[in-house]
């Protein structure tokens, strides 16, 4: 039997995290009040005038709010799928390569972009896909007209997802590599003796073994469904792709920080948080049901 005191050190370890949570997440919550007020910085949040739901009403009136929610969800969902499937497939493929030196080298190279900030990666991306950039040169060799990938409404969200997956898949694959190494090699030996082909072994042993990890990662990432990646989009977008590329975070940034419409920006941010909370609750339930994983 464990007695209570043996848990003590866990609580102490938890403390810094809780303090951080309190100061950076709970305390600033009163800022939500701004969305119900005509915020006047001179008076402060508490003394500003109450205006009820005016900010929310205006938010629902403008076309933009629907559009930014739709864009956010579209980009975030594609990113979730891409960032789950690509690393998984990549890990499975690399796992079949027996040359250790090769796998190590490839692994190191592909996870490097993860450590670069979007400011840098966006610059590289814009250059590579620029009008006279290498990609367009290549396309021109095949006789097609050069195009502007990052100024095209239809392509933009896909370019965002693609560049994000390119940047992150190597790093995301690490977890799958870990899961792969924990598979008991005796299973493969047994299967080989029973005459299972390499592909059959992949399907019947490897895949089922890493599936719980994949499901877990997938459900947990649901909480991020409204985070389509501010850093990335902010550095890549331009007014020509607002219709498909503008997301909640970039919109709130422009309204709140650039145009000083604090109330409206807070209202949109609050709505994002509410929807986010619902989604996290769902992902929690799903994680428990399908992966038998409880966070608390």
């Amino acid at each position, binding site marked *: 039997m464990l007695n209570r005191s043996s848990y003590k050190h866990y609580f102490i370890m938890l403390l810094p995290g809780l303090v951080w949570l309190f100061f950076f997440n709970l305390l600033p919550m009163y800022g939500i009040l701004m969305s119900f007020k005509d*915020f*006047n*910085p*001179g*008076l*402060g949040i508490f003394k500003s005038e109450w205006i009820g739901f005016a900010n929310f009403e*205006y938010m629902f*009136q*403008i*076309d*933009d709010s629907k559009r930014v929610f739709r864009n956010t969800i579209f980009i975030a969902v594609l990113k979730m799928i891409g960032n789950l499937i690509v690393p998984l497939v990549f890990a499975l493929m690399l796992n079949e390569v027996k040359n250790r030196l090769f796998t190590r080298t490839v692994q190191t190279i592909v996870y490097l972009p993860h450590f670069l900030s979007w400011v840098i990666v966006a*610059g590289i991306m*814009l*250059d590579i896909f*620029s*009008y*006279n950039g290498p990609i367009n040169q290549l396309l021109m060799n095949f006789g097609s007209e*050069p195009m*502007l990938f*990052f*100024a*095209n*409404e239809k392509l933009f969200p896909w370019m965002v997802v693609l560049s994000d997956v390119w940047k992150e898949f190597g790093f995301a694959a690490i977890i799958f590599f870990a899961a792969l190494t924990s598979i008991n090699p005796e299973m493969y030996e047994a299967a080989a003796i029973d005459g299972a082909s390499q592909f059959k072994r992949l399907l019947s042993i490897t895949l089922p073994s890493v599936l719980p990890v994949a499901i877990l990662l997938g459900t947990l990432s649901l909480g991020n469904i409204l985070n389509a990646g501010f850093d990335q989009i902010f550095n890549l977008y*331009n*007014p*020509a792709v*607002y*219709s498909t590329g*503008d997301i909640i975070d970039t919109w709130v940034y*422009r*309204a709140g*920080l*650039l*145009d*000083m*419409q*604090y*109330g*409206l920006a807070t209202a949109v941010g609050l709505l994002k948080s509410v929807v986010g909370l619902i989604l996290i609750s769902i992902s929690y339930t799903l994680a428990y049901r399908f992966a038998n994983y409880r966070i608390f």
Partner: protein
Amino acid sequence: MKRSFKILAVSLIAAMSVTACSNNNTSTNAGNSSNSSNSGNSQNTTVDQADAGSAIDPFAKYDEPVVVSIGRSIDPNYKYEGDDTAEDNVYTRWLKDAYNIEVKHEWESSTSDYGQKVSLAIGSNDLPDAMLVDETQLRQMVKADQLADLTEVYEKYGTDRLKQIYESNEGLLEGVTFDGKLYALPETTLPSAPLTWIRKDWLDKLGLEEPKSLEDIEKIAKAFIDNKMGGDNTIGIVGTQQGGSLYSTFLSSSDHFLNFSPVFFAMDAYPGIWVEDENGNAQYGSTTEETKAAVSILRDWYAEGIIDKEIAIRKSSQEVISSGQTGIFFGPWWSAYNLTDSIKNDPEANWRPYAAPLNAAGEFNSNQATGSNFIVVKKSYEHPEAIIKMLNIHVNEKEESYKTAVGKEMTSQEIPLFLIMGHGDQLDYAVNTTQKVLTGEMSLEEVDKLNYGFTYELASHVKNVKLEPFDNYDIQYWDQETDKDFFTHIYAHLNGGSTFVNTKVNWTKSLATAQTKTMQSKWSNLKKLEDEVLLKIIMGTAPIEEFDSFVEKWKQQGGNEITEEVNALK
């Protein structure tokens, strides 16, 4: 980016400052402006306090150190002397020693993020004692009652010189007076219209005429592209870069550097500012038929490849100019400051500005820049007079100790709360006088050194830099080596400035220069609508008919309401 251009513009114009400047240590485009150190007359404090009436000495040293905390924008590329920083340098140390005014930085930010940082400070009501803000921010702070009333301290402590400068710039102080109270100290901006800058060496090579109309510019751009003047990927006209706008607006006049304002002006369109319609009612320039016509021209130009295909996506348009890939761009007279790299890369790059394109009636139109910097002081600050003193010190000739303690020219990077302060006609005077001294029509001694210190500096260096013929500003008639530091200043003033001051500009001023009440809640949405639709039409991803539905939408989503408010302003 927008902000950084503005700062650049500002620091360039700063070179025009009334006080002397003798650029001696920095790169060309940093705008080394500042205060005169070469004054023989250092005892002028007595003259200046005459107006103070009572016993107040506007230059008196404080008995106890007075701390001024400020928010400061820093140019990350600026090189300070030795271990100096923006907060602790020869100028601030001298300020402390000579006047007991101690400048502390509450926060610092890069020039490009400064506006955002200020907005954040306003929003959180966590203000430094003083800082520089733009007009919208100023009004927001007035509304929020965050600012100190400077009326009294300005009257008491402002020197004659300071007051003269403000008086010579009509309407400047009225603009920052709300309910009879002076809430800010504005900068004296210079008017500036966007000119068309063209590589004249290319024009000559192809035997083309100087441009007058939009069609001429189109023809020249086509010729440059067809003859591959800038290599295989020659870009006809380069302009707006990522984060930039197609034209300057009433809220952020980035001084027209590298955008497409002139194309609009030539069509009598004034997008981005508030103008009068034929009945004298206010209307927003971006929603007019003229703007539609101008957009349609840009759309054709884009389709034909005349303007940069990567408009609004390109990271740096300046780079295209420097690398010699283009032969045409639009920019104000001081754009010449930004051409040094281009000239370095190609000594034949002979950039000349033209007052073109003209409109159908042959007039040269421009909107009048409205953006500016203002010094504001926090309401609860105990020593608002210290801020007035700092500005006094900035615009007046310095005490004796300045020469030994500082001894060289300071820039906006050293001088805290730096404003461009000059007489209304400083550019005209600088250009005309420098020309006259060059040709010998005027002697150096005749230059009004007291009021136009920087002109004196230009005039005293011009002969090292400009070769004969004196009235030809082509690049081959300049000596770039003898007096490197002054080459850029004089090149900008004579090559760019002379074209501008000798052009009759048909100015249009915005009816509103800051956000109205409804704008505060709805402008961000309307601006986004505008930016998006216009850019899409130009890039050909939306049909030109979309313009009309944009105007409809714009009006519905708050535009009508705002127009009413602007009407009421008149």
